[in-house]
């Protein structure tokens, strides 16, 4: 499609987005100052979104845990389909989107993190992509939404298939896919991305990881709930590979250093497993009154992995495999998280229709039982409020919190 046409389309799409999600729910009634790192991320996110709607910008729809370094090496703005669903969740007009998906016979039993982006594309709110870049795990459903969006926008869809085991064969299989992906992008864009582009992106990615890892270390022995939340946001944004993200991670680490040791009261720590609601969500607010919430996903080993600057694709491949929810690896990794972070209980949030969390839940409950930790599995919907009633969930959460005390 001609760039000029894309630019015109994106102007309309931007207006549609503002019309749809411009009216956001009250952010939070908690009167607390935001971390500097959180403020920076908010600004960078807004800037990134604005850029994505501009004529001439290169936009790639990406799925969760897609190696964003590849997109950044092509100077592309990664548009994370799933994370955008959380922005939708804060909109007062969220029902409009889900009503539209139902009118198109999309079952309400499908996870709202997939239905939400699908509905926003139907509302023509997302910027027309140049590419759709997906990976098949941990959510192959999202990969399928990527395929549908590529068809809808007539954009090339390039998908990575990550095997489960880590060995030379599987690494080379994945490296070849990434090489093919990159050469196809070069061909379509009519540009050549030299090794230097990927090298500088990987350097930024590693700079960010270095601070990210040091912050995770601080989280182990200190009560830093806001820092834990910010790590979750950084993980969800998946902006590893650009200078701004390295700065956010550095600032967060510096703030965590200042805050470490200040909080003396030792509250119980609950590991939040599964999809995470917006920060102002009533369940989180309710739980925060009693316990510290530590988020599971940002603590995965894959997030800590530094990339090999001499052979980046191989280490990106290894990280992609590590992101797989292999039952045995998950067991070892989560057990270690429990010990490192002195976890007292698990809250497993199973979003309706998410078979991935449902599938791994039993492994996680087994870990909790083996460690004699209290656990609660709640079925909720963090985006489509028609599928959820706070009082029903709160009743379970209250009993769980009473159990922990």
């Amino acid at each position, binding site marked *: 499609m001609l760039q000029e046409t894309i630019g015109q389309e994106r102007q309309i799409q931007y207006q549609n987005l503002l019309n749809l999600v411009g009216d956001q729910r009250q952010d939070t009634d908690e009167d607390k100052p935001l971390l500097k790192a959180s403020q920076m991320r908010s600004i960078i996110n807004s800037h990134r979104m604005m850029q994505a709607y501009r004529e001439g910008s290169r936009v790639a729809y990406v799925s969760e845990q897609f190696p964003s370094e590849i997109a950044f090496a092509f100077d592309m703005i990664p548009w994370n389909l799933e994370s955008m669903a959380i922005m939708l969740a804060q909109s007062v007009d969220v029902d409009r989107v889900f009503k539209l998906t139902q009118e198109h016979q999309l079952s309400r039993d499908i996870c709202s993190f997939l239905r939400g982006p699908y509905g926003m594309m139907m509302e023509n709110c997302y910027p027309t992509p140049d590419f759709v870049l997906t990976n098949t795990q941990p959510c192959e459903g999202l990969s399928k939404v990527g395929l549908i969006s590529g068809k809808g926008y007539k954009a090339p869809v390039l998908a990575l298939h990550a095997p489960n085991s880590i060995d030379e064969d599987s690494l080379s299989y994945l490296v070849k896919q990434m090489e093919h992906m990159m050469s196809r992008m070069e061909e379509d864009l009519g540009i050549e991305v030299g090794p230097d582009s990927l090298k500088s992106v990987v350097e930024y990615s590693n700079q960010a990881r270095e601070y990210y890892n040091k912050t995770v270390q601080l989280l182990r022995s200190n009560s830093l709930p806001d820092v834990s939340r910010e790590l979750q946001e950084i993980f969800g944004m998946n902006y590893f590979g650009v200078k701004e993200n390295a700065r956010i991670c550095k600032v967060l680490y510096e703030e965590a250093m200042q805050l470490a040791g200040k909080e003396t009261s030792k509250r119980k720590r609950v590991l939040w497993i599964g999809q995470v609601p917006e920060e102002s969500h009533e369940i989180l607010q309710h739980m925060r009154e009693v316990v510290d919430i530590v988020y599971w996903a940002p603590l995965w080993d894959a997030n800590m992995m530094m990339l090999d600057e001499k052979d980046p694709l191989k280490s990106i491949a290894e990280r992609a495999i590590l992101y797989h929810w292999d039952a045995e690896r998950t067991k070892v990794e989560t057990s270690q998280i429990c010990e490192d972070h002195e976890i007292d209980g698990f809250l497993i949030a199973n979003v309706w229709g998410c078979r991935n969390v449902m599938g791994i839940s039993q492994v996680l409950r087994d870990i909790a039982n083996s460690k004699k930790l209290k656990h609660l599995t709640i079925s909720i919907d963090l985006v489509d409020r028609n599928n959820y009633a706070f009082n029903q969930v709160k*009743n379970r959460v209250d009993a769980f919190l009473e159990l922990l005390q």
Partner: protein
Amino acid sequence: MITAGIDIGSLSTKCALMDEDQKVIGFDVVLTGGNNKAATEEVYKKALANAKLKRSDVGYVVTTGYGRENIPFADKHVSEITCHALGMHITNPEIRTILEIGGQDSKAIRVNEDGHVDNFHMNDKCAAGCGRFLEVTARAMGVELGELGGISEKSENTVKISSTCTVFAETEIVSLVAVGTAIPDIVKGVHNSIATRATSLLRAVGLSGPLGMSGGVALNSGVVKSVEEALGKEVYIVENPQVRGAIGAASIGQRLV
């Protein structure tokens, strides 16, 4: 000091009054209706009248149930899971697993020797398997809720009823009634359906030790029998099962004052 426990449920509101010896000195039950504050006032007054007490005689009030946070005169509110566990433990400390089926949810609770909750599991997504399910199905069959237990004993050729969704089950029952299926066979099918859900909850929480049942549905002998048949295990029905949450709440009050 006398304490009051008030359990504000979706169908009924219960109040129990307790003295320092952990003895229940008065209780009552009213329908919640559309105004849980009014129901709470009513049941509190009735329980006080039953015990020949005045409001000022009560030193501490603990509320539980879905409406627990809406009562301005409450000193503390606690989830009904904790309250049912304690309410059962007071009279039956040997019980280790509790099945509590209330109006809009059902729970399996595992308790330790001190009456504290070890683990619990609750129904999800639909009220199938709860009191409301019985209410809807009884209406579809044209029988009184209180008669269900006796009717189910007459079943000779029990039918299978969906245990997934109340509305699906209602549709199924209407169809069965329309083709002339014997009401006792349908009622027994409904009870078996509830038992199916209940046994899943109990096994999920880990069924161990003697099993007790509380909540209003425990008054339905047909459901109790179906649960016993499904588990191959005796179910102990505590006295006044529907008031156990309120008794547990009053007991928490005694521990706090």
